[in-house]
């Protein structure tokens, strides 16, 4: 199978990359930290006007009816600029969950329409994460309880802020009461939806981690090409070149893994555990290596607040732990590899046969 992104998908990525690079600069991210909410409402509306929040909303609810594979390049670009707003979690993680239960729950259909126009922001909790991001600005929260999923308006949830290593992330513990009116799914259906949500969450995080890694490499290459010692750029020394080459290799090897995971989530979500965990582990390794080598290559400068590197580095540290820590995903990976029916091998990369 020859997997490539379509011209349309690449054009969309290019346009959105231009928009994000111009609008979400490190200065803009720092300015957002100074606001009460840590979020820029005008930017959110701008992204909605560009159709970003509507991508995965079904056409019946005013969206574009696209899939995760269409969103993955955008999630990568969100990582490239360390976007503070929760676009990936609302548009790629929460929206498909709401869409899957919208027929039986009219309130979900309304929320989907509001997501498409940028009027609603949805925060999502999961058993894989201790905290809920953006509970303070969300209009609605999707929260799990056992095998059940509930949808609540923000005023029905009591939330308490928690510190984060990343100033852009706003984390909260939540206290709430489940009721039959808030319940969207439970039992086997709930378990299935929670599992699919976890995979989409980890997939979105993996894409952002690779975007962050690439930005850290770019910043470090630029710095080491400009910073001179003993009359020449420090980047001309092999010791630093090799650091960056290792990062570039990690990113290059992780990208196809990410694309395969997005493809599998889109085409056959029930087989997505292994590819998603593979993508999350690979992306985490690449991002953490880029952060570590970036700091080292910047010298003491890399660790300072003034140097923009920390915006991306701290986001990478934070995302590495979200939607399942490394141990959890490695464990899923090992379970799959030891399964005699595992679809492993080049000819199975995009294989959609049902594992026996």
């Amino acid at each position: 199978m020859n997997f490539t992104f379509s011209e349309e998908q690449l054009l969309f990525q290019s346009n959105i990359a231009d928009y994000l690079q111009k609008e979400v600069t490190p200065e803009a991210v720092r300015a957002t930290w100074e606001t009460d909410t840590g979020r820029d409402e005008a930017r959110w509306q701008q992204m909605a006007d560009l159709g970003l929040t509507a991508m995965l909303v079904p056409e019946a609810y005013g969206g574009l009816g696209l899939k995760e594979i269409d969103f993955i390049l955008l999630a990568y670009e969100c990582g490239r600029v360390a976007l503070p707003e929760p676009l990936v979690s609302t548009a790629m993680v929460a929206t498909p969950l709401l869409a899957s239960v919208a027929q039986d729950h009219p309130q979900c259909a309304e929320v989907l329409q509001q997501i498409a126009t940028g009027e609603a922001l949805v925060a999502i909790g999961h058993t894989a994460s201790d905290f809920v991001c953006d509970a303070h600005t969300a209009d609605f929260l999707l929260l799990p309880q056992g095998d059940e999923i509930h949808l609540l308006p923000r005023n029905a949830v009591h939330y308490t802020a928690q510190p984060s290593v990343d100033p852009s992330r706003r984390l909260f513990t939540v206290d709430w009461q489940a009721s039959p009116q808030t319940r969207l799914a439970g039992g086997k259906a709930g378990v299935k939806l929670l599992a699919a949500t976890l995979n989409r969450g980890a997939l979105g995080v993996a894409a952002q981690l690779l975007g962050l890694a690439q930005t850290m490499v770019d910043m470090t290459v630029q710095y080491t090409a400009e910073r001179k010692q003993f009359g020449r750029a420090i980047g001309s020394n092999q010791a630093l070149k090799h650091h960056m080459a290792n990062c570039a290799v990690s990113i290059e090897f992780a990208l196809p893994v990410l694309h395969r995971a997005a493809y599998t989530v889109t085409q056959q979500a029930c087989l997505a555990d292994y590819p998603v965990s593979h993508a999350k582990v690979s992306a985490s390794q690449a991002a953490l290596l880029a952060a570590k080598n970036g700091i080292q290559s910047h010298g003491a400068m890399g660790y300072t607040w003034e140097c923009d590197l920390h915006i991306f580095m701290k986001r990478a540290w934070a995302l590495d732990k979200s939607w399942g820590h490394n141990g959890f995903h490695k464990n899923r990976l090992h379970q799959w590899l030891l399964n005699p029916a595992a679809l492993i091998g080049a000819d199975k990369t995009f294989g959609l046969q049902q594992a026996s």
Partner: protein
Amino acid sequence: MKVLVAVKRVVDYNVKVRAKADGSDVDLNNVKMAINPFCEIAVEEAVRLKEAGVATEVVAVSIGDKSCQEQIRTALALGADRGIQVETEGSVEPLVVAKLLKGVVEKEQPQLVILGKQSIDGDNNQTGQMLGALTGMAQGTFASEVAVDGDKVNVTREIDGGLQTVGLNLPAIVTTDLRLNEPRYASLPNIMKAKKKPLDVFTPADLGVEVTSHLTTLKVEPPAERQAGIKVESVADLVDKLKNEAKVI
């Protein structure tokens, strides 16, 4: 009113270009390409005229090999209705571009042709003016404001020391300056719609134009690197260096 907009494929303005090792041209390998920023402003102006109900159709035209269809699609995503590619190979000099555009103008009969004042690769600033001369249409160059009024268009031009407003009879040619407008970003729904919009391909022969080159690039080299400055001991030393080394006084 039909508006024709010319768009050119150039190296993205964020890219730091490098000369090829043999000095024959700029190295375009693995370089991000984009619509020339002035052409993007032209597309935006045409789309705004359409949104204001002044224009009825916006046609985007580009000249080059198949890769320039990418820029036409971008123009379509920004709001143009139809695309035209004039298929050529290699680089084409401004006079040939103007002749090819004249051919398209004769075919399409637009009331208004909007072009960027120059492309950021060649920086020639010639095509609009040459097209004006070839077609005999009125021209308003370096526009910072365009207002269509019946069968006339008032163009405010950015000139040395201020602004000049000229009234042109339609059909006319306008070339855009930087401050005319701020181009929008293409939204996803419009990118999806752009795929379904028609794109016609013509050859120079279809337009009755022979592509001949009158210019030869002798050498492309990067600008000389700036030398490090020095501190002088006294005003007398400074004057001496300005007089004898820099030879500016």
